[in-house]
C-alpha cells in the first residue's frame, strides 16, 4: 500500500513503473499492475516474489513501511475498464495476472455497477489463490459477479471444479457466448494469454473485444 502525494488518480487496469536505484547508481525498473480501485484512498500494488527477481525480491523482502519508492504512472489506456460500460464482462486470470483484474472488480463494486461479470481464475493450488477471501465475499454480494476457480496442480479433497488449463470448451461452458458481445480482459503469463485469446477468437469473439496483458518471462 502506497501513499501517493499528488497522485492524479488511476483507471482500473493501469500499471506503474517502479524504479530502484542502488547506491552505485545502478538502476532496475519493472512494471506492476495496480490492484486497488480508483475509489480507494491508497494505491496498492501486489508483488509476487520471484526467486531471481532483483526488483521483486527487494520489494517483498527489504522494503519497510515508510520507505520511499520512485514510481512512474499511472500508465496505459489500452487494458482499462470503466464501471459505466454496459457489456457483460469476462475476466480471465492466470496466477498473479489477477492483479489488474482485481482493480476492475473492486472498481465495479465500489461504483455500484451490476454488469454481469465472470472471473475465470487459474491458480496452481487453493493456497496460491490471491485475494481468495475477498473474491468469495464479492461473489456472494449478489450483484452479478461470479468466480470460477481452476486449480491446475493440487486440489483440496473433494474438489469438483476444473483442474485443466483454460481451453475453448471451458470458455464455452462457463464464459459468455460471443453473441452476448462481452468485453474480455485476459492477463497472465504469455503462453496462458496466448491460449485463452486464441480460444476466445475460435469461439467467435471479435479480436478488438479481447484485451490482453502478457507478463513475459517473469515480472522480475
Amino acid at each position: 500500500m502506497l501513499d501517493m502525494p499528488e497522485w492524479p488518480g488511476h483507471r482500473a487496469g493501469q500499471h506503474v513503473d517502479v524504479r530502484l536505484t542502488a547506491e552505485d547508481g545502478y538502476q532496475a525498473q519493472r512494471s506492476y499492475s495496480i490492484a486497488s480501485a480508483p475509489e480507494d484512498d491508497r494505491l496498492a500494488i501486489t508483488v509476487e516474489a520471484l526467486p531471481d527477481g532483483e526488483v521483486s525480491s527487494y520489494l517483498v523482502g527489504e522494503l519497510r513501511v515508510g520507505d520511499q519508492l520512485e514510481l512512474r504512472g499511472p500508465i496505459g489506456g489500452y487494458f482499462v475498464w470503466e464501471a459505466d460500460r454496459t457489456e457483460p464482462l469476462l475476466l480471465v486470470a492466470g496466477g498473479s495476472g489477477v492483479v489488474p483484474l482485481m482493480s476492475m472488480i473492486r472498481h465495479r463494486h465500489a461504483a455500484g455497477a451490476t454488469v454481469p461479470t465472470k472471473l475465470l481464475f487459474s491458480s496452481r493450488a487453493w493456497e496460491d489463490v490471491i485475494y481468495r477471501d475477498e473474491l468469495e465475499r464479492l461473489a456472494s454480494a449478489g450483484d452479478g459477479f461470479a468466480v470460477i476457480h481452476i486449480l491446475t496442480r493440487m486440489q483440496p479433497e473433494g474438489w469438483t471444479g476444473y483442474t485443466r488449463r483454460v481451453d475453448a470448451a471451458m470458455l464455452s461452458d462457463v464464459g459468455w457466448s460471443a453473441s452476448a458481445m462481452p468485453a474480455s480482459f485476459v492477463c497472465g503469463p504469455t503462453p496462458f494469454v496466448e491460449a485463452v485469446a486464441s480460444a476466445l477468437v475460435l469461439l467467435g469473439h471479435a479480436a478488438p473485444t479481447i484485451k490482453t496483458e502478457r507478463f513475459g518471462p517473469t515480472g522480475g
Partner: protein
Amino acid sequence: MDDVMVDGNALAGELSEVFSQEMTLARVACGSCGAVEQLGADHAYTRAPGMVLRCCHCDHVLLVMVRAGEQLRVSLAGSRWIDL
C-alpha cells in the same frame, strides 16, 4: 532468446517520456503489411538492449527505442503512420 513477447501496453511508461499523449490507444499502421492496430495490441519485446514494438500480424518492426546513457533514440521507420 530469453526475451518473451508481451503487449504494446508494456511500452506505455517509456513512451510517456517521449510523447505527451497516452500512446497505447494510438493507431499504428504497419509499414510492411499495412495492418492498423492500437499500439497496445501490437507485440512488444522489452528485455532486448532496447525496446521493440512489432506488428501483431506480420511481426514487422514498427518502433524501436534504445537508451544509451542520457540519450534516447527512437525509430519509427517501420510504421507507415501513427494516429494520435
